[in-house]
């Protein structure tokens, strides 16, 4: 009993000293709790469905950020990885009767292969040229799908895919927990030594080479990682929707992910994820005013981009937190002295 109390007190101390000191950390904790507790507030099938899709697109947006926000390899055809992951998982499930636990990861591996395919032109092309080239890839795959309708379902897509889990709540839990895990992994990657090299490649690729780092390898790695996570999102989508069509490769999906990421703040991982959780459910839940929602959406996004070019959530974070000029630790904006080195924050 005493031992439990001891650990409980220790946990409380950690929460007080490490979490409650920074609004961004509190926000992350609240976000995790919200995700995990949502089904206990509501068992409305529609709301659960919206939030399940939100989780899938959050993984997708974070994977774009990993590649484009961090490594600077502009990909305007990111739906390629999503669609390839979704179609591969669906085909393996339908034709080979593979269970979701196999079809989704295997589909993601096919998306990695797609990542390599796009990565190779990216070794030579930069900026706008790369962006235009990447746009072509999903269109090519759509062309292939229409060419072999017997195998791929053509325009109608593939239906009758196996359910991910028996109930909506279970499906929600599988996907939402995966989302939390995958996004944490992506954030960890960007925070690692590899992440530093990704960042540096975006800043100045020649200088990275001149520092002895094989940029070809790291760029391909970024494409593969991004393809893998986006492919997982696609596979989850296939088994959740139980139907996959050419819309998973659509240009609008590719643009959507760019808008989400820039809206939330590129090169942060948390920004795109938060943006999806803000924009996607709002847009869905406003389906009553169907006629206006796209235009309202466009105006909101434009306003954010004009007034907060670094993204909404990074802007918010800058407002409530500031860096100590001496030790670079982040502090709540209303503190007068740094919480670690007690330097003045005026």
């Amino acid at each position, binding site marked *: 009993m005493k031992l439990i109390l001891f650990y409980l007190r220790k946990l409380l101390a950690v929460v007080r000293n490490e979490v409650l000191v920074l609004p961004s950390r509190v926000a992350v904790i609240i976000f995790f709790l919200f995700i995990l507790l949502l089904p206990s507030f509501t068992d409305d099938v529609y709301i659960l469905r919206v939030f399940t899709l939100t989780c899938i697109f959050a993984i997708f947006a974070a994977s774009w950020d990993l590649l484009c926000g961090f490594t600077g390899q502009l990909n305007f055809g990111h739906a390629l990885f999503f669609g390839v992951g979704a179609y591969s998982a669906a085909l393996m499930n339908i034709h080979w009767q593979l269970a979701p636990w196999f079809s989704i990861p295997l589909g993601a591996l096919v998306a990695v292969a797609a990542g390599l395919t796009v990565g190779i032109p990216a070794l030579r092309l930069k900026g706008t040229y790369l962006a235009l080239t990447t746009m072509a890839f999903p269109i090519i795959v759509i062309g292939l799908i229409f060419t072999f309708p017997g195998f791929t379902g053509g325009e109608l897509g593939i239906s009758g895919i196996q359910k991910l889990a028996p109930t909506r709540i279970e499906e929600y839990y599988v996907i939402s927990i995966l989302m939390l895990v995958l996004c944490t992994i992506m954030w960890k990657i960007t925070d690692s030594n590899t992440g530093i090299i990704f*960042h*540096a490649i975006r*800043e100045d690729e*020649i200088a990275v*080479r*001149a520092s002895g780092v094989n940029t070809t390898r790291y760029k391909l790695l970024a494409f593969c990682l991004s393809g893998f996570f986006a492919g997982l999102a696609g596979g989850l989508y296939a088994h959740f929707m139980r139907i996959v069509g050419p819309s998973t490769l659509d240009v609008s999906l590719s643009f959507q992910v760019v808008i989400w990421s820039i809206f939330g703040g590129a090169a942060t991982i948390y920004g795109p994820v938060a943006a999806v959780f803000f924009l996607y459910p709002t847009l869905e839940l406003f389906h009553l005013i169907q006629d206006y929602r796209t235009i309202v959406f466009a105006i909101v996004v434009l306003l954010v981009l004009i007034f907060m070019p670094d993204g909404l959530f990074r802007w918010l974070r800058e407002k409530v937190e500031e860096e100590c000029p001496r030790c*670079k630790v982040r502090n709540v904006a209303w503190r007068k002295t740094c919480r670690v080195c007690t330097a003045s924050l005026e």
Partner: protein
Amino acid sequence: MSQSFLEVKGLTKKFGGLTAVNDATFSMERHQIIGLIGPNGAGKTTLLRLMTGILKPDSGSVRFMGQEMAGKNTWDIVNKGMVSTFQNMRPFRRLPIIANVMVACLCPRALKRGEWVKKIEAKAMDALEFAGISDMAKENASILSQGDLKRLEVARAIATEPELLLLDEPFGGLSPAETDLMAKSIKRLHKGGRFGRLHSEGPAMIIVEHKLHWLMMIATRIIVLSFGTIIADGTPDEIIKNPTVIEAYLGQGGN
């Protein structure tokens, strides 16, 4: 000794009609510090870029420690032990200064040689300390002055633990006092005893510099380039008296 440390033969590079480097041929020994001088636009930077693979030569060869370098990737050349700084500094502006150097510490060569240091950060910090900008390690590189960017270039280059270090105007933008410090650090680096190489000598160097006064203090040998061609090669004393060199400089309006 069967082969020399560095052997450059017939290296040539044309930009359109302009021959930036014309049939450059020289060799150097492991213990040397060479000063590479010449009027503006003589092709000094181009020569260094050809050696480190940032530019591909039209013809010629660069043999470094017994291996051909011409045509190889820059990162392969750096991992063989030849690294260069950029004259027009190229920092990763939105990364902290320490992360700028950590990139170089993460190259295979540095990783292999840095086993005795526990952390990449600690090693990057060492390099920054050497260059004299360790107190700003956590700031973004975008805040650095021109002179400090020069030092960051040097820190990043030595973090790859080179055998041959090519410095392109390391004193540019530094005040006389700072230049003095930097010159001393470079000499100290050459003697060895820092940078993961406690038991071996420091790197050989080729230094491009317009501040001849300081260069003459460090370099044991000077190569003079004019219009892409090597016009003189000798000890500092010989070079100062060489009439062709004096004319090349005076012809440009003096220096």
